[in-house]
């Protein structure tokens, strides 16, 4: 009789505990499932407001950050994740929070923050099975940071851990081609361009804008020629105005234009390469 009573008591207690833990997020989760993320954010914050238990609060903040991510408000998501307290959290929870922060930082374009979060995951995660989940993000982040050899290495690890051997080998071959010297984006050096632009128009030629370079050269040469001509015939003020004042405008204008064009071109090159990699990755279906 006593045993039966104890069993009933324990069973009821367990039921109550499980029920109440799920009940904390019931409203917020149902809004989340209905894709009403804006209201779900409020309800998750209400949980943070009501409950003092830091595990529940962490969970709620995490879910709130996911809502922001789904709303495309990545900065807000990052800000929420910074509120998480890591004191007394399990390894798997820590991994989850760091990983989400890394993803949101990546989406917000804060690639250095992503690197920092990924480094923390590598430092604190003992479970190697978990680590295989970060290789892809790590590789994409290295790509954005223009650290292509590290990116290639991370992609290889991602293929090894997420695909069958044959497919992984063929993907590694494909990516070896992408990351070969001929496949990598060809960035133009600002330093070289600045040296070349001492001769008007040459820097623009180097940057890949021959027409602009020619035009810049003709303008500068015409100003210089006109200036010399005027001085030769005794028009000193006119010569100075045309030869020095206008030449300096075109000359220095050409230099700053070269810098702008090179920055824009390098950005485009990087985008083209990274988009190609991303499109290839998105078309893949991991086996494992």
């Amino acid at each position: 009789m006593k045993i039966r009573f104890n069993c009933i008591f324990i069973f009821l207690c367990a039921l109550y505990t499980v029920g109440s833990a799920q009940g904390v997020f019931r409203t917020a989760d149902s809004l989340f499932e209905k894709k009403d993320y804006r209201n779900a954010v409020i309800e998750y914050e209400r949980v943070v407001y009501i409950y003092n238990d830091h595990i529940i609060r962490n969970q709620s903040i995490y879910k709130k950050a996911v809502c922001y991510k789904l709303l495309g408000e990545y900065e807000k998501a990052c800000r929420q994740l910074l509120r998480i307290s890591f004191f007394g959290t399990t390894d798997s929870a820590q991994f989850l929070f760091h990983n989400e922060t890394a993803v949101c930082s990546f989406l917000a374009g804060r690639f250095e923050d992503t690197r920092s979060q990924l480094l923390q995951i590598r430092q604190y995660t003992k479970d190697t099975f978990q680590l295989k989940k970060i290789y892809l993000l790590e590789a994409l982040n290295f790509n954005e940071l223009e650290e292509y050899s590290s990116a290639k290495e991370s992609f290889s690890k991602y293929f090894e851990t997420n695909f069958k051997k044959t497919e992984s080998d063929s993907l590694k071959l494909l990516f070896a081609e992408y990351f070969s010297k001929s496949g990598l984006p060809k960035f133009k050096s600002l330093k070289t361009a600045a040296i070349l632009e001492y001769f008007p128009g040459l820097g623009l030629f180097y940057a890949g804008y021959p027409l602009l370079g020619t035009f810049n050269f003709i303008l500068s040469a015409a100003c210089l020629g006109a200036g010399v001509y005027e001085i030769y015939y005794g028009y000193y003020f006119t010569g100075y105005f045309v030869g020095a004042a206008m030449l300096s405008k075109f000359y220095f204008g050409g230099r700053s234009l070269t810098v702008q064009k090179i920055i824009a071109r390098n950005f485009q090159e990087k985008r083209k390469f990274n988009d190609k990699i991303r499109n290839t990755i998105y078309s893949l279906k991991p086996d494992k």
Partner: protein
Amino acid sequence: MRYILLLFFFTCFGYVAAQKSLYSQGTEELGFISHLINSQQYEEAIFHISQLPVNDYSSIGLQDSMHFLKAWSYYCLKQLDSSAFYFQKVRESSSLYTSALFFASSDFIFLRQIEKARTILEKIPVKDSVDFQLRNLQYAGLSLLQHDYNSYSNYSKNFVRSHYSLSNEEIVLEDCNNSMRRHKDKSLFVAGALSAVIPGAGKFYAGKQGEGISSFLLVSFLAAITAENYIKAGPSNYKTILFGSLFTVFYIGNIYGSVASLKVSREEFYRKYENTVQLHIHIPLRTIYGR
């Protein structure tokens, strides 16, 4: 009869229970909204208040608090027109009425709608000496913003310089008043005339020395080129006409620029003091009524 009494009893009980539940729900929401605001989640606070049946809370006296918190969130987001709108929704019966009106008037001051700010200040019920002093300071500030120095003098007579959150601001306003009164506006005509005689001199007069030197060099240089071509190639030569036209454009432009420079430096002078006045009539609001 017994049944009617029973029905009446149950109706009363139901009404009281519903009001109590609404009240507890309302106060809970109020606490939560304050939490959102304290953790600087203003957009979320505004969104949440918009979702609530704020009008239902009027029977339990929480509607005004909701409007106040919404206005405060807009105020923190620097959306001052919305903030002023919701501050004005707080009713006279609310304990927040006075502070709401002070902040609504402050919103209008920052929006440079001085007359609206003044109208709102007139509505403020003065309950004690602090409210009176605070409102007086606001009026004095508004007078300075409108450059109405006589009106300022009338209000400044009421400065007592004894309240901790007002005394310093009263001194600052007095300093601003003295500086603005002492300032004599320079003549736009003189600036233009000086620039016509010596290019760039008008800008010097306006207090913009760098611009003056640069204008002088440019116009003189163009004059020298025109003169050179005039002397050597004659008045009908295309270079004389080209550089002469260029010189004329820059010469006239320089006169116009001098007048514009003087207007800008005038605005800069007054803007500097107006910003100081705005800030110092706002500080005591935050000290006395701020959250």
